[in-house]
């Protein structure tokens, strides 16, 4: 037992610092490794050309486009639905057994393995609703997967808006809905954007949900409509890493790097927007 308070303080600090270092280090190493291995492959042609010779040459343009389509489609479905239901749950629903059960179910949904969502999407959207393997089916599947993230973060954002703001607004004769729209939502926006960032990252990066619902093995043309199949970066990466022999290592890492950059730059945009809002409304 160490008696000296000063020594114990130092020890606690060292342990906490080391733990953080251990957490951060792998992230940095992964980044450095992928950039180091992949940046040779990055070129204008790589980003804008169709894949050639069974994906062993050419670019990854259709996979980039496909992933962007899927992210966009996911947000179109998931963002309004998630935010609106979060508003209902946080602001309107009475705190009773049913509401608590719904909230618990939503939290648990976030823990469902993504391949289960993939199978669900295959059953509902691809087969039952006859969308076929398509951008529509893939987006809907991804949307259902990210809904719990959006709902949970939106609810946290709404709950963090001080109760006094609502009271003042109501006491000024503003209706409840107008209070939510004009007072609560603007102040919750940064938090909602955080949820969106997480949702985008997840939707862009997941392989399993798109495996059965949209992703094409090899499709060297761009999708023409939302009912088309499309290539997508995570699945493409899986394919060229495990399914096609004799592919140059740098093409694999180049693809991984592009996926990483898309996710990071989408996040960066959202973070900048969020910072802008935070600067305007701070309390």
């Amino acid at each position, binding site marked *: 037992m160490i008696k000296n308070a000063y020594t114990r303080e130092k020890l606690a600090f060292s342990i906490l610092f080391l733990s953080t270092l251990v957490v951060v280090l792998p992230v940095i190493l992964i980044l450095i490794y992928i950039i180091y291995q992949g940046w040779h492959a990055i070129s204008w042609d790589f980003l804008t050309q169709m894949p050639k010779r069974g994906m062993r040459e050419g670019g990854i343009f259709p996979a980039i486009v496909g992933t962007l389509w899927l992210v966009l489609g996911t947000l179109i479905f998931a963002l309004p639905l998630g935010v609106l239901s979060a508003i209902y749950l946080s602001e309107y629903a009475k705190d009773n057994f049913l509401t608590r059960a719904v909230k618990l179910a939503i939290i648990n949904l976030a823990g469902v393995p993504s391949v289960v969502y993939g199978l669900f999407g295959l059953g509902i959207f691809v087969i039952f609703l006859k969308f076929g393997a398509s951008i529509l089916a893939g987006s809907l599947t991804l949307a259902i997967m990210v809904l719990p993230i959006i709902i949970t973060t939106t609810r946290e954002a709404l709950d963090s808006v001080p109760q006094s703001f609502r*009271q*003042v607004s109501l006491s000024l*004769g503003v209706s409840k809905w107008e209070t939510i729209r004009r007072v609560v939502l603007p102040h919750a926006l940064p938090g909602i954007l955080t949820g969106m960032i997480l949702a985008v990252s997840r939707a862009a990066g997941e392989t399993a949900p798109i495996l059965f619902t949209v992703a094409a093995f090899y499709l060297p043309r761009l999708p023409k409509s939302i009912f088309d199949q499309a290539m997508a970066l995570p699945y493409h990466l899986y394919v060229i890493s495990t399914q096609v022999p004799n592919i140059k290592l740098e093409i694999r890492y180049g693809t991984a790097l592009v996926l990483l950059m898309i996710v990071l730059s989408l996040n960066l945009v959202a973070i900048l927007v969020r910072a802008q809002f935070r600067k305007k409304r701070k309390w």
Partner: protein
Amino acid sequence: MNPIIQTRNLNLFYGTFQALHDISIDIESKMITSIIGPSGCGKSTLLRVFNRMNDLLEDVKVEGGVFIDAKNIYEPGVDLVELRKKVGMVFQRPNPFPLSVAENVLFSVKIHRTAAFKEYGDILEQSLRAVDLWDILKDKLKTSALNLTLEQQQRLCIARLLPVKPDILLMDEPCSALDPIATAHIEELMDQLKVNYTIVIVTHNMQQAARVSDRSAYLYLGDLIEYDSTEKMFTIPKDRRTEEYLAGKFG
């Protein structure tokens, strides 16, 4: 006598706890009425009956009649939006929105769309003049309201009410977060405002009640013990309990 707020046999329950017992009170128009009493005796609860802010809490039950301009505000079908436009409220802690001074004052105007854009400047000036902030803030209308002193913030909160054109201002211990000088300023302001508004103020500061109010109501454990002109009540209280409270024997 011209009562604007009247309650008749008002009982209020939080779940099974009865917070107000059989309260019948007439509050006079264009006067300052103070509600005094020890903490937890139902002062704020009574105040929040008048604009139905108690409705926000779950499990609140109100019995009896509450009439504003002779209309029962607890009748089914009462428009809370209209009621709260008529009965404005100032809270204990100054609570401006984290927006600019101008946006705070114009908050209700923009939502209720009660004025055209070109009138905004006039409304802003009138409202800020009414609370003596115009000369200090006319060049700082775009600064965040949170940069103001607490006294200025509380004045701004009063100014924010005025464009709604209320008849009644409810003030829930409006000076408890302020220092004595700021308190004196707000009290002066209340005196100016009473020309145009009926003011009901909750305070546990007896001196404040004596200084500002025309009539005082003494509330103890949810009962209305005494209600009279402030002068009478503070010089010759009728009830022994009022006398003891005013003499500082408890509370």
